[in-house]
């Protein structure tokens, strides 16, 4: 759809400048924007040295090089819809907004003497700009690329900020260790002195309570249980639980298993690593690539065997479906993306969920009314309405949408000492709407939105799968 540029005359780059470098095999620099090409299989994250040596032809600069985001930048007609939808720009005066971070910066940084602007670290990676854009500019892809470059080339790897971001981005590694002794870890991390030290030493806010580890991880429960209880030739899903449902909200993962088995699905739980979302958000693209490689390989194998991939966290499904194909080109990336679904979405497409829900007498269930918040990463996938629309059919349980504001935490963003206040200011609208809502229990698909909802209102927060479990599994309704 987008034109590739076959001459320097219309590509907009400076032909005089590009040609000498092309002769020395550095054409990819003028093109991709970075000198470093850490991995030869990198797509947009590091610049791909597609052409080296004397065979290089300038006319190929823009052909078949996936990391060229110029056509996307050219689609931007500066309508500022993205800035209007950016929750950070609405509260942070130092943040110039997605239009600058994306298409404008992409153009600026193509010149070798221009470095990525450090304001890129202000972006919370909510990705709302993507769906706001009427012109399909790949904004978040540009942001991810710029952030990765900034971290690779400009950030001091010994700085407190880098260390802190690396720790936050690699939550799963820490969680893996901490969850071995969950009670001890919970006691230590819940200690206010430890929290103060974290803030002083690392810049991790002391305002937040560290998420508690479950007594038993989901994977350990799954193993102990003996794996799947349902076998099926044609209804099979591979569950991508991610780190959080494995270590912290294990009850969400268990709800998924019970609901899907009730609908007759055989469940596979492949080996997996973090989806990479917190890594993208912190520009740790090398870490993200390592995780993604494992996930694409294992999920790809599952798809090969007829499993569809299902995630219970909307940031995980977003990463597998959008960010992987945008940033990496492992074999099978596109195939995994095309066969990945959100847990509720998949059921709504493939099963009759509505009739059983209708048949349930909600008044007989021990369920509260809910204040539902759609995470940005569900909104970006067009999944923001599915929970409220489904539970409209559940009599006696009121599920109210608390509006379209961002919760403000955006994964690791709200954990940073210097972002905490912004995070709470962004979330203010959601807190107010939650308090105005009839229900005094929250509902959302995203574990960090859930943290923020709880933090701002004191409400308990459930996942739609838990409500589905209560309505369809814990009752004798016919499915």
């Amino acid at each position, binding site marked *: 759809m987008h034109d590739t540029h076959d001459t320097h005359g219309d590509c907009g780059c400076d032909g005089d400048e590009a040609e000498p470098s092309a002769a020395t095999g550095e054409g990819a620099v003028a093109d991709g924007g970075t000198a470093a090409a850490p991995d030869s299989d990198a797509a947009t994250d590091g610049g791909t040295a597609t052409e080296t040596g004397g065979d290089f032809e300038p006319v190929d600069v823009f052909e078949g090089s996936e990391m060229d985001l110029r056509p996307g930048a050219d689609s931007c007609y500066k*309508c*500022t*819809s993205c*800035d*209007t*939808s*950016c929750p950070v*720009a*609405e*509260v942070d*005066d*130092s943040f*110039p*907004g997605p239009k600058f971070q994306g298409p404008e910066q992409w153009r600026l940084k193509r010149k070798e003497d221009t470095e990525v602007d450090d304001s890129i670290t202000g972006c919370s990676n909510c990705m709302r700009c*993507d*769906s*706001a*854009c*009427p012109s*399909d500019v790949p904004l978040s892809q540009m942001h991810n690329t710029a952030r990765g470059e900034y971290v690779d080339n400009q950030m001091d790897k010994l700085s407190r900020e880098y260390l802190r971001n690396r720790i936050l981005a690699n939550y799963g590694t820490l969680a893996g260790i901490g969850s071995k002794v969950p009670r001890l870890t919970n006691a230590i991390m819940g200690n206010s002195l430890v929290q103060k030290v974290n803030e002083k030493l690392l810049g991790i806010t002391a305002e937040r309570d560290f998420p508690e580890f479950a007594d038993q991880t989901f994977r350990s429960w799954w193993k102990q249980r003996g794996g799947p209880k349902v076998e099926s030739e044609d209804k099979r899903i591979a569950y991508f639980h991610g780190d959080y449902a494995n270590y912290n909200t294990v009850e969400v993962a268990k709800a998924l298993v019970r609901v899907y088995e009730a609908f007759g699905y055989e469940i596979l739980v492949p080996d997996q690593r973090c989806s990479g979302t917190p890594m993208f958000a912190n520009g740790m693209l090398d870490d993200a690539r390592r995780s993604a490689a494992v996930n694409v390989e294992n999920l790809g194998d599952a798809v090969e065997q007829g499993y569809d991939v299902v995630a219970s966290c909307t940031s995980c499904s*977003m990463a597998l*479906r*959008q960010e992987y*194909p945008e940033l990496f080109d492992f074999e099978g990336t*596109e195939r995994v*993306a*095309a*066969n*990945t*679904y959100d847990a509720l*979405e998949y059921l*709504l*497409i*493939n*099963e*009759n969920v509505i009739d059983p829900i209708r048949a349930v007498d909600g008044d007989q269930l021990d369920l509260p009314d809910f204040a539902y918040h759609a995470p940005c990463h569900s*909104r*970006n*996938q*067009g999944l*923001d*309405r599915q929970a409220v*629309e489904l539970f*409209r059919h559940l009599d006696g349980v009121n599920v109210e*949408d608390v509006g*379209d504001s961002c919760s403000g935490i955006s994964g690791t963003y709200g954990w940073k000492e210097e972002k905490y206040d912004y995070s709470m200011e962004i979330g203010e609208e959601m807190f107010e709407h939650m308090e105005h809502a009839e229900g005094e229990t929250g509902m959302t698909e995203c574990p960090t939105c859930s943290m923020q909802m709880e933090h701002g209102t004191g409400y308990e927060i459930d996942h739609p799968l838990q409500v589905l479990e209560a309505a369809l599994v814990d009752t004798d309704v016919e499915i």
Partner: protein
Amino acid sequence: MAIEADVVVVGGGLAGATAALSAARDGAHVHLISANESTLRQASGLIDALGYPNPDGDDADDAGTDAAPGPLADPFAGIDDLPADHPYRIVGADALRAGLALFDDAVGDLYRGGHTDRNALVATTSGRAKPTARYPRSMAPGLVSDDRATLLVGFEAATDFDAPLAADRLAAVGVPFDVDGVTVEFPGEYRADAAVTRLAHALERDEDAGEGRTSRQRLADRVRPHLGDAERVGFPAMLGDSQVEAVRADLSERLGAEVFEIPTGPPSLPGIRLADRLFDALDEAGVSMTTGTPVVDHETDGDGDIVRVYIDRNGAEIPYRADAYVLATGGLVGKGVDSDRDGPVEAVFGCHVPAPDDRMAWSEEGAFADHAFARFGVEPDDRLRPVGSDGSPEFGNLFAAGGVVGGADVAREKSASGVSLATGLVAGRSAAEEG
């Protein structure tokens, strides 16, 4: 399996929203699919029905009509002067009336103008008086027909409104009131190019703006010395988001003059407020909605009816099934109509779009001339089904509404919203009958 509904509406702008509401009120379960966030968010928030039925009336000998070029006092009075293939001529004046009534009902007290058939004249940021059928309540005190002395206030940070220039222009077209314009600095410490939403947010929350005063207090302080005899004060439409009436009331009281908003280009807070209100109305009507996902494919049965459409969700194709479908994807600008070397074509279902064979005849000289391309769109039958080059419906159960319907030059006529309302109403109704 698929996601099931009686009617699927493709498109989330004013036409799509109207079609969905119209079908839902006729009892259909509707699913609305929008490729991006609603384009209403970029719209001015004004609801134009018809301002200039014959924009070249003075010099267009070949138009074959002697209709006044406008601006029209009564939009309905201009419908008979439109060409026979204009969407208003196809659906009729009653459809426009019913579409406006549906709109009035959906938006409630957010809008004014529903008490009369007549157009109002609203001052724009460029200092023109625009004929429009419905306007946000926040703009009501600013109508050009009102003779109270007026001060227009622009902000240095909001560069698309030059208040002194707009005031001069309004004075030059002979408005019946004294008008002056002034540019002030927005109170508080914000970056020079702060997002409009950032400033609106500051006013809505009445943030601390330094010197121990809030943003509204300091704004009033800055405007007061320029007031003169002005009894009303117009600001660009950024006086808060959902609490605009509270912001306006507060500023009015502080200034001792009635404060109003002037519609701006995108990003448009009145457009965002309208989108939010309409989507609430859709929710209340039980309409299901999916936003941010384009329709990329469809299947037909042996009779030529559409059986399913598929949306693209980040690579995965998701099927939606309905008895009838409404196409409300917009025109060339909205990307509902695409064009290549072979000619224009409707972008989602590939419906026929009539156009002159000679590409040179697609446009005329001059930016706002009578361009053929401006009227590009599908050709509808009397139930608003797009027809092929042979004149028969492309699909038995596809109905079109809004900018994707050809025959209107909405930018020149000032009829975009009215066309969306009238055709949206009829397309939604026809689709519900089918479902």
